[in-house]
């Protein structure tokens, strides 16, 4: 009995506390929230009318605005570089950058982060999506709240965001990787692909682009793709998978790993075992210094990537441009990206994109230099 009374009492105090808390925070916060509401309302119609003349000719500064980035996951060096670039660009424009690293590399975890950013009333959210479908609902909610949505590194469905900041066109990456395999294999022979997880959006897109490019030109007729293996971006599984590829295909000439963890693991396996199989793909210079070289002592003659810091920079400037109305995300829009010059929104298969440039080649001559730069 005593317990019940006490429970009721506690419940009562709790609810009072709750109400007081909410009321208190509500009133204390009104100034701030109306502030953001006002700015977003201002910005929203500008975007809706989508007439460039109507867009406020505000200075290209992000003064007083908040720009957020949701990375793929915490503890990811690749994403850390993106974050660095993003922060530089945003701060150069006078804005505030919030970088959120989800606890794990899942869409579930990203939803919590985006949800929290909506509460904070940020002006734009830049997402490196872990899944192209599962963020749809929360991104819709964010844009209903007047927040500008854009994606970087890996895209979501085109109607969920204003623009996708792409590192390099998917077709070009596919073509480049295929050419690398062709070149290293000497024009003919077997090659295999070691990817990340089976649902990694960009890896899948690049692999598809490689296959399409191989179909398109008879030059690649003697180049045979034997298997796509998945190392799940885990060193151990990637090692197992690489060894299995070597075992299964004694005539294998090249392995192509379009993922940073996979390429490093595969490089170590090939180099340590002194295998004649060569490696190429997409990798971080700092991870690969040990393994890049023309001679037989190194497993990877060359590989590609793009400048992640530049990508972050561009994404930062694009966020700023989108928020202050310089950019609406329509095809043909052009805008200034700080010191990086002018960029134009293009249409790739019905998806609006801004493309950073071409994949950059890393070989023995420049890899050390880039690794020293921290990339």
């Amino acid at each position: 009995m005593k317990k019940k009374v006490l429970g009721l009492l506690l419940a009562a105090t709790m609810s009072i506390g709750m109400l007081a808390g909410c009321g208190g925070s509500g009133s204390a916060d009104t100034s701030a929230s109306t502030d953001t509401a006002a700015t977003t309302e201002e910005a929203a119609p500008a975007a809706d009318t989508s007439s460039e003349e109507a867009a406020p000719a505000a200075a290209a500064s992000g003064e007083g605005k908040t720009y957020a980035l949701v990375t793929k996951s915490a503890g990811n060096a690749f994403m850390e570089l993106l974050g660095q670039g993003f922060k530089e660009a945003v701060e150069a424009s006078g804005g505030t950058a919030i970088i959120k690293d989800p606890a794990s590399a899942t869409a579930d975890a990203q939803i919590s982060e985006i949800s929290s950013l909506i509460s904070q009333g940020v002006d734009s959210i830049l997402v490196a999506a872990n899944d192209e479908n599962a963020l749809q609902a929360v991104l819709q909610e964010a844009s209903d709240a007047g927040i500008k949505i854009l994606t970087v590194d890996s895209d979501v469905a085109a109607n969920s965001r204003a623009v996708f900041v792409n590192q390099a066109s998917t077709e070009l990456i596919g073509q480049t990787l295929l050419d690398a395999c062709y070149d290293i294999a000497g024009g003919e022979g077997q090659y295999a692909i070691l990817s990340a997880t089976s649902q990694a959006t960009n890896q899948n897109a690049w692999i598809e682009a490689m296959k399409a490019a191989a179909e398109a030109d008879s030059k690649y007729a003697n180049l045979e793709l034997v298997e796509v293996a998945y190392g799940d971006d885990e060193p151990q599984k990637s090692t197992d998978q690489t060894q299995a590829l070597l075992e299964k295909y004694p005539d294998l000439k090249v392995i192509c790993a379009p993922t940073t963890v996979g390429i490093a693991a595969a490089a170590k396996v090939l180099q340590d075992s002194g295998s004649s199989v060569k490696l190429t793909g997409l990798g971080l210079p700092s991870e690969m210094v040990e393994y890049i070289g023309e001679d037989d002592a190194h497993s990877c003659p060359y590989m590609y990537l793009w400048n992640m810091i530049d990508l972050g920079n561009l994404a930062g400037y694009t966020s700023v441009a989108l928020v202050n109305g310089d950019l609406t995300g329509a095809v043909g829009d052009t805008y200034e990206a700080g010191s990086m010059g002018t960029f134009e929104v293009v249409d790739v298969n019905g998806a609006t994109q801004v493309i950073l440039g071409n994949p950059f080649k890393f070989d023995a001559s420049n890899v050390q230099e880039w690794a020293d730069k921290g990339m």
Partner: protein
Amino acid sequence: MAGKSGREISAVPEGGLKEKLLTWEGALILIFVAVNILGVIISPVYNATNVLREMPKYLAEAFMVFGMGYILVLGDIDISVGSIVCLSATMACFAGNAGLPFGVVVLVCVLTGLCCGMFNGLIATKFTELPTMIVTLGTQIVFRGIAEVSLGSGGSISMQNTEGLSLIAKKIGPFPISFFVLLIFAIVFITLLSKTTFGRKLYAIGSNQTAAKYAGINVQGSRFFCFSLLGFLSGVSALFLLSTLYGANTTTGNGFEMEVIAMCVFGGIATTGGKGNLIGGFIAAFIIFCLKIALGQRNINTQLILVIIGLMLIVSVVIPGLGSYFGAKKKSTTK
């Protein structure tokens, strides 16, 4: 002996500590209030509107607390729930995209969960020598494996017709529908465990399975029922998760099992069986949600949030332990 409710055999030890904290549930309510006050202090945007808006994604997880509570009271454990959520959500998406009406989609989602739960229950009751941790470890890999195979390369599916989903994602006033459903479930399952003979039987099984068996309780039947129930609730969970995701992929529900077990344990349900009650687990779930939301709004490193939750978990189980430790010492010295 078992008294009016399961509360009489709660995790709180008899003696000095009880007077201080009254009951663990009382302490949890205080912690809940404290977390909310903390939220208001550290985050300028921590208010009812925002908390309720961020809540639906977390609420989906809370459904499993009831089922897991039952399982833990039995002295069992189920670490396959995350995978069940994944499989249910995947199957629901396939059903939805096949053009089936939303009612059928809901049925598919929930029934998939139920089937998985029944499969767990079947193995757990047919091979009683096997610890349920191992059974569900195996099915955890298998269920997610089935989802992976059916999703094929790409590993992701989106629900094309989102009408039904947006319906259950709707809000009544400021509260999401899932909140009311959760409340109803809470009332039903909390009453079932603490006020009925069925509930008392579960405590009996958890306290001493052999004794329960000789007392004429259908031990294996009850265990089968609880595993099926948890499967069913994981299906419900998947449904509400879908209403915030509009799609599923191979990582959906990853790590849910540990989070749900943590909520139950933080709520005072002992993994050794026979102790604790669901109200605690229910409040604990909200404490963890509110804490995550508050710290999230403060943009605190997500991994640091996990460290904080880990610490809370350990402190919450160490306190009663310390109580009995010092209590025992005092007793022995007074002798």
